């Protein structure tokens, strides 16, 4: 249960107070279309609600998500179709006696009776798939299982709803055929065409978030499909961003524990087989020989090492630093090759870091005298989920008025002091902790602070003072004679 609250907390702004659930009569769903993009670590779900207001001034629309899905969902956003600005979503308790949760969406403008609107709910689920079979030999294929519920729940009546499940390859090994759906459809309850499996359309679904409906009709459906890309998990990400004003530099360093969450390697790794496979270009999908990462433009001093030293097998193409406001900024591309190909179930840890010009990510606001620096929460490793992330931002020594804006709420954050490189009072350190980050979370944290001019000179002064006192001490020592009695100069010969 704790985990659940964590999840909900992550998803929603903590400050949003629960609002009384809106009446189930205020809206009607003309249509609900849910599209599930099957992946490895990440599953993208897009649900479109075509809603129609039944009451005047209907402003709050309620979406119901089952508990299992809430647990898996790491990112959630509701938009009006065709608009950029996401709507405010708040948690509003669960429908009586059911294992699901209501999310209230505040519409921008109240709808009149009969007015319609298309709402798009986008979620990213992590850890939603599991490899099946759980073990695969080096040459075998990789297949995963994904489970979801048949019906999209809604407190409102739904005229028609369907669920499309898309896989990246047409080789879907099996899928569940739903039962007890005769009330909603007379045709085939599920159809498969190519790489898509469609459940529905199901017509005239009543208010479905009630306990009665769930018990009677709701049922899990499971898909077993081939997946041609590795399933990667970053078990742990520790990012440290250090800002230096003297060097006009921002250093970002990631400590990463990478895990291949695909089927475990059955038997043992044979280099011979691996070399043959890569020679003929038919490597197994669950082997990770290389990861391609897009780093910011204009970076320098990139380093990549692990616990026993430098890893010399990577390749980096640095894109030049782009002018501010320029569109289509190229990114540097790092082809990161681990020491060994990461087979299913194997781990690899490494540290990747780089320096970037501070000007590329910082701004000075002359009005307030504050610097504003943006630090991305993470760098995406394609198709992977970050289970645990800790992002620390180290500001220059003596920075005051520290303020920050995170793009989405963190599990926890704190401000502390970090002492390094000849510091006297230490630097402000802001730490954010996150769970289950996905490619939708690669947004920047904005930190603003002020650095008084005296803070810039603190370090040179401290070093100069110490050196000067050393020299003074040496001078005094040279000039003071402490011998008790003078001895004759030693003879050279015996």
């Amino acid at each position, binding site marked *: 249960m704790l985990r659940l609250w964590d999840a909900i907390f992550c998803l929603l702004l903590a400050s949003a107070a629960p609002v009384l659930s809106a009446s189930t009569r205020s809206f009607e769903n003309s249509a609900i279309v849910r599209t599930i993009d099957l992946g490895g670590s990440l599953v993208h779900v897009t649900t479109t609600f075509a809603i129609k207001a039944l009451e005047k001034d209907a402003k709050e629309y309620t979406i119901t998500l089952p508990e299992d899905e809430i647990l898996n969902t790491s990112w959630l956003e509701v938009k009006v179709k065709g608009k950029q600005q996401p709507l405010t979503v708040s948690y509003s308790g669960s429908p009586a006696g059911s294992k699901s949760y209501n999310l209230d969406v505040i519409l921008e403008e109240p709808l009149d009776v009969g007015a319609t609107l298309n709402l798009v709910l986008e979620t990213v689920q992590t850890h939603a798939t599991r490899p099946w079979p759980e073990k695969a030999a080096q040459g075998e294929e990789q297949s995963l299982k994904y489970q979801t519920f048949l019906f999209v729940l809604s407190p409102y009546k739904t005229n028609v709803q369907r669920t499309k499940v898309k896989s990246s390859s047409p080789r879907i090994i099996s899928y569940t055929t739903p039962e007890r759906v005769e009330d909603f459809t007379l045709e085939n309850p599920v159809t498969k065409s190519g790489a898509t499996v469609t459940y529905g359309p199901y017509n005239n679904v009543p208010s479905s978030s009630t306990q009665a409906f769930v018990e009677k009709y709701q049922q899990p459906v499971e898909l077993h499909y081939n997946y041609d890309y590795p399933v990667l998990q970053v078990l742990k990400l520790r990012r440290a961003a250090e800002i230096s004003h003297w060097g006009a530099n921002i250093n970002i360093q990631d400590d990463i524990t990478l895990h291949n969450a695909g089927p475990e390697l059955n038997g043992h*790794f044979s280099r011979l087989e691996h070399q043959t496979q890569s020679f003929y270009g038919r490597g197994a999908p669950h082997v990770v020989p290389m990861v391609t990462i897009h780093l910011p433009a204009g970076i320098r001093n990139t380093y990549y090492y692990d616990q*026993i030293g430098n890893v010399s097998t990577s390749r980096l193409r640095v894109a030049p630093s782009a002018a501010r406001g320029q569109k289509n900024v190229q990114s540097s591309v790092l082809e990161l090759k681990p020491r060994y190909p990461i087979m299913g*179930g194997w781990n690899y840890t490494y540290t990747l870091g780089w320096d970037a010009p501070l000007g590329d990510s910082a701004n000075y606001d002359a009005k307030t005298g504050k610097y504003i620096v943006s630090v991305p929460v993470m760098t995406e490793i394609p198709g992977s989920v970050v289970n645990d992330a800790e992002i620390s931002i180290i500001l220059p020594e003596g920075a005051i008025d520290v303020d920050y804006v995170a793009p989405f709420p963190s599990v926890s954050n704190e401000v502390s002091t970090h002492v390094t490189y000849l510091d006297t009072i230490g630097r402000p350190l802001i730490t954010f902790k996150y769970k289950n980050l996905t490619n939708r979370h690669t947004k920047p944290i904005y930190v603003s602070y002020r650095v008084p001019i005296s803070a810039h000179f603190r370090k040179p002064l401290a070093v100069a003072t110490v050196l000067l006192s050393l020299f003074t001490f040496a001078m005094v020592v040279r000039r003071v004679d402490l011998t008790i009695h003078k001895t004759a100069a030693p003879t050279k010969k015996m």
Partner: protein
Amino acid sequence: MSTAPPLPQNISASTVANTTSLLRILALGLISAAAIASRLFAVINFESIIHEFDPWFNYRATRVLAAKGFYEFWNWFDPTAWYPLGRVVGGTVYPGLMATSGVIYNFLHYFNLPVDIRNVCVLLAPGFSALTAWATYMFTKEMKDPSAGLLAAAFIGIVPGYISRSVAGSYDNEAIAIFLLMFTFYLWIAALKQGSALFGTLAAVFYFYMVAAWGGYAFITNMIPIHALVLLLMGRYSGRLYVAYCSWYAIGTLSSMQVPFVGFQPVRTSEHMGALGVFGLLQIVAFATLVRSHVSSKQFQNLTAISVVSLGLLGALAFIVMTYKGWIAPWTGRFYSLWDTGYAKKYIPIIASVSEHQPTAWPSFFMDLQFLIFLFPAGVVMCFRDLRDEHVFVIIYALVASYFAGVMVRLMLTLTPVVCVSAAVALSSLLDTYVDVKEPSLPDATEADKKPASSGAVGSHAGTSAAAVASSTISDIFNAAKSTKTSKPKGIWGTDARIVILLNAIGMLVFFVFHCTWVTSSAYSSPSVVLASQNPDGSQHIIDDYREAYYWLRMNTPQDAVVMSWWDYGYQIAGMADRGTLVDNNTWNNTHIATVGKAMSSTEEVAYPILRKHDVDYVLVIFGGLLGYSGDDINKFLWMVRIAQGVWPDEIQEPNYFTPQGEYRVDDRASDSMKNSLMYKMSYYRFSELYGGGNALDRVRNQHIPKVGPTLDYLEEAFTTENWIVRIYKVRKEDPLGRDLKTANAFAQGKKRKRGRVGSRRRAIV
């Protein structure tokens, strides 16, 4: 007084003194910088990494020290080494190196300089080489003058003989030991010269540091007593010698016994008895001197005769009895091998199997010392010219170190400092003579020649007398060659004669610098953990198979897994893979190593129970056949066989691994013992398949491997690195049905059981 080129006059003496002092400090600073810089090839060409084998243990121990503090380190019992025996690390290491790094690390962190402990370790040796240069300067200054000292410092700073053990990343005891050696010697000389108990005590303190840092401290333990003894025999006993030696010995010995690994050795082993004996002798001589000043000479002679004879007999008898009773440990094997180079090969193959314990080849003297080796004897002869106490020390040092350097390659290291000192003395005498701008006086003013002259380039005042002595030495030789002992003036006339000699000398020095740089960069700067080769386009290609395998072990095997490998790789596995090992480079248990050797050289059936009894999970072998990497396990295999044979002469016999013609082969003519040995099987398992049925060529031994490769029943391949250098095998657990694994395998592959052999095969292996 006439000079060849005119010299500026009217410069005050204090200006000269200040300028020389500044120049000297600058020169020493530059020498330190050069010494550090020339050791950084390894970091620049590769990376900041710990080199070779032993340093990995030191590094691991230092990490424990830095992370957990000194007391944890002191009490550290490492259960993963020498599995299942374990190792009491705190009591079996020389902790000086780790303590030094730990102190530096904590010092830097106290000042908020977050330097990684690895970088402290990597750069420790270059840093200390700068200190060595300074210590050598101080030492040579005592021998001759500061200008010779500067030359010696420059020599030791870049000489390959010392660089070979102190490049960045070569984090071994020798890294700090040479500094301690030279500095202790300097302090000893200073104490002896001044009769100073303070310097004697300082010498003892640094001797203690040396004892804590390197097993080679026994060199000091014997050098100083020999020096004292020789001085005694030369009739040079004095109060100064007594004070210096007694303060050094008493404090040094007591403090050295505080190192747990040394313990009571200073009073119980033969290596230390010399120092004790000289200590006793000095007391007797001091007492005799005291008595002599109180009694008449006739009585004294009788007294001396009687007491010397009786005391000598008593001492020798006591020594023999104590050795016989075992109170004094007899000489160790390592010590015997210093006197008889064939000893180790016969009795302790494990010592002989180390390449750095081999006798030195002649070319390596030139490689390591270049032109210093020619100047070395000249410098020693110079010491005879002016035989002060400290010169006796250099002569003894030169003799002893030359012998040892000839016996063992690694002892080249102890020879290097004295070569640098002697060569600097010789070269600086030459330079003093020829840089000196003073023209020889006319015949009527021959006496003026004896006056102190202002010394040449450096112009130091302290050394003028020595320089004059040296220059007269050269002139003596010069004149002797003419064989006319007339009253003709001695010296060098004109500028051209000077320039010819000086250019020649400078040329030699320049070549020396080039030679040192070349040797350092090409021979001594490879980490050996990482191999370098070139891509077709000339860029560097790093072959990183070792770390690939070690990191795989670290990341993807259970934390408590035990890895069996030949002992060379023990420290690396512990350091990089963080897994338990059976044997490692601390070769204290010959039987355990022989057990591993036996497992490697036996058949699978014989080896399997050994592996299981030792809880071995993985077996690691080094195989260079694909790449042509010659330092692999098949080439070391004969040592494994020999060491195993030493313990199990009935089961393992070296001749069985050769062909009937006496050749060491791995192709289809290899002997049966060879082909069935675990090592052979693990090395060549599935190797020929890589060539797809073609001719599989072992590029190290240039032999073709049979098309049908060896099969494994009791082990299975777990990991092989990119270039096949490291191959790791997993030891299979017993068959759940109680069959032996060979039968189980055959069954799994669907082979038909042979009739009549069922019964004998059913036996379960424990």
